[in-house]
């Protein structure tokens, strides 16, 4: 079977010109020179060049495209080289398999006030913890769509994190690292973007790959929240689904190619099923495929629980956490036993 030129990543008008000139399959183009092609298909020289590059990328036996292939063993080695972003909650780290995974997308869902933004701010600080303290020493791009980014909270969390690390200093390397791990540097390594609607958000994400190339130390992208701009001004729901699907692919492509963690928050909505109302993540069922992992924050009485709802490692778990003035933390030791019991009982009901 020959490959149609319509399967190439070119603009539709260029493809149509090719077909009109009789170039229906990529084979017809393989042995042409750009000048020849531009004359025969009435394309500009630049367009002709683009066409030929696209054709040769696949080029039956060429190895340009093969570079994207790797064996599972290669991937395993790559994964082991990538460190995770710790959350400052050891239980949540354990549930996540060592922290927030870099190179993947993670979604936090939950009702208002349960602590989604707090966890985002915490991770925005955590990603900057120097490597000698077990961090990854990265930078963060923080896209705020709800106006919920509070500078004072970041300063509080950063202060606590800096203090925490300063207490751990043991050797010279760590002492030197502390000189560049201050509240000021944390703020200056946080690139804040405010988006007011989905058009601004999509535009920002469109430009982001260039920004990331210029800032190779960015290891975390936060979008708080992805739900807000997409839950208003949409009459055509199928258009929304399409945009969201495209956005999901853009995010995972960026996460993979820039070794960056993507963290998004989502709101909850009520769905009626079988006469029962149920709280489910917003943006529809299809969006649920978008994040690699899904974390659900919810209340159980006065306790705050975080549940891993979907993960590639397929390890479901529920942990209890608290929001303190210093940030997102495990609950105190005294309450710990109680949590373990409650998660254990939850597991039982699950089976």
């Amino acid at each position, binding site marked *: *079977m*020959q490959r*149609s030129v*319509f399967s190439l990543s070119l603009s*539709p008008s260029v*493809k*149509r010109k090719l*077909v009109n000139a009789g170039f*229906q399959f990529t084979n017809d183009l393989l042995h042409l020179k750009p000048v020849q092609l531009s004359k025969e298909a009435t394309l500009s020289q630049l367009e002709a060049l683009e066409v030929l590059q696209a054709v040769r990328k696949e080029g039956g036996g060429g190895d340009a495209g093969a570079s994207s292939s790797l064996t599972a063993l290669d991937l395993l080695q790559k994964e082991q080289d990538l460190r995770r972003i710790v959350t400052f909650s050891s239980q949540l780290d354990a549930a996540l398999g060592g922290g927030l995974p870099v190179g993947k997308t993670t979604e936090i869902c939950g009702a208002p006030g349960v602590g989604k933004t707090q966890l985002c701010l915490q991770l925005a600080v955590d990603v900057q913890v120097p490597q000698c303290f077990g961090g990854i020493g990265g930078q963060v791009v923080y896209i705020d769509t709800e106006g919920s980014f509070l500078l004072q909270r970041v300063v509080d969390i950063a202060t606590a994190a800096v203090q925490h690390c300063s207490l751990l200093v043991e050797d010279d390397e760590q002492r030197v690292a502390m000189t560049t791990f201050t509240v000021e540097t944390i703020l200056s390594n946080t690139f804040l973007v405010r988006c007011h609607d989905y058009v601004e958000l999509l535009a920002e994400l469109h430009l982001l790959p260039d920004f990331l190339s210029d800032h190779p130390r960015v290891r975390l992208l936060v979008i708080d929240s992805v739900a807000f701009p997409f839950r208003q001004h949409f009459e055509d729901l*199928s258009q929304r689904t399409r945009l969201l699907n495209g956005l999901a692919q853009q995010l995972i492509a960026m996460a993979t190619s820039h070794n960056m963690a993507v963290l998004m928050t989502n709101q909850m909505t009520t769905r009626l099923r079988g006469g029962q109302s149920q709280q489910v993540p917003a943006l529809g069922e299809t969006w649920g495929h978008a994040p690699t992992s899904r974390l659900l924050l919810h209340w159980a009485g006065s306790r705050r629980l975080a549940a891993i709802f979907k993960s590639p490692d397929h390890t479901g778990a529920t942990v209890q956490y608290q929001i303190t003035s210093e940030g997102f933390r495990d609950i105190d030791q005294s309450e710990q036993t109680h949590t373990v019991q409650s998660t254990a009982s939850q597991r039982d009901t699950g089976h």
Partner: protein
Amino acid sequence: MTESGAQLFARLEARRCLKDIEPQMFPEDGGPNHGEVVELYGTEGTGKTELLYHLLCRCVLPVASGGLEVDVVFVDTDYSLDMLRLVSILDSRLNAACSTGLSCSGSDEAALRSCLSRLLVVHCSSSSQLVLTLHFLETSLSSRPGLALLLIDSISAFYWLDRCEGGASIGKQEEKLSKCAELLGRLLRDYRITVFATCHTIRRSYTGPSSDDNRPYLCRPWQRLVTHRLLCSRQEAANNMASTAGDSEEQRRRRVFTVHCTSSSSRTKAYRSSSFYVSDGGVKFI
């Protein structure tokens, strides 16, 4: 082009008529005649493929086993021919004929092979290839007088590719299928064969309900060729038996398909509805 006397004879005389291919489905005396086109239309899961295999088996089975014993060309544009399924239907038909004592000639394997040798399969991957392949098949048609049926599964396979390639102009979009249809029209006249083609439903709008889903959407030249339209649908079972496991014949029997036949071949329109279920041995009419 020159033509030998034998070829002329093959072209005009010896082709078998397929009017009686399935008396339970077509209106009385309204089966497809020489040079007529039957379109099978329906969504996924409405028994189209099974029906097609049923008709195909009827053609290639020997007369002694209740078949018509004619040659068939299967143009597979969807790359969907399920040979294993086809063989299991043929097998069960051959065995059924054997057990009723109609015929029991030779080994099963040999009988099966002779059925399959009446079938020619050709795969096409674009509509321009389809046009050229039809030209190419003309040689087979002129040299094999036993060839009475041309199956195309499906005629709508390249619809979206053509739509996209054609750009804004409807004429361009439909150019290739129109050429196919014109050529088929000539082959039908010249060689007096019969054509069966499947056509998948498409959903044209994502918003409105699917009220006009059954309206023909392929180009006019093709529509003009079609003389019989078989509209396949599934009867929704009242109770969903999804939860009960098992695959008894009983359960299959409950999944009933309906086919509405509209024939406009003999000037007057005729209609007929029939129902069937699918067994291991293929389509069984009720």
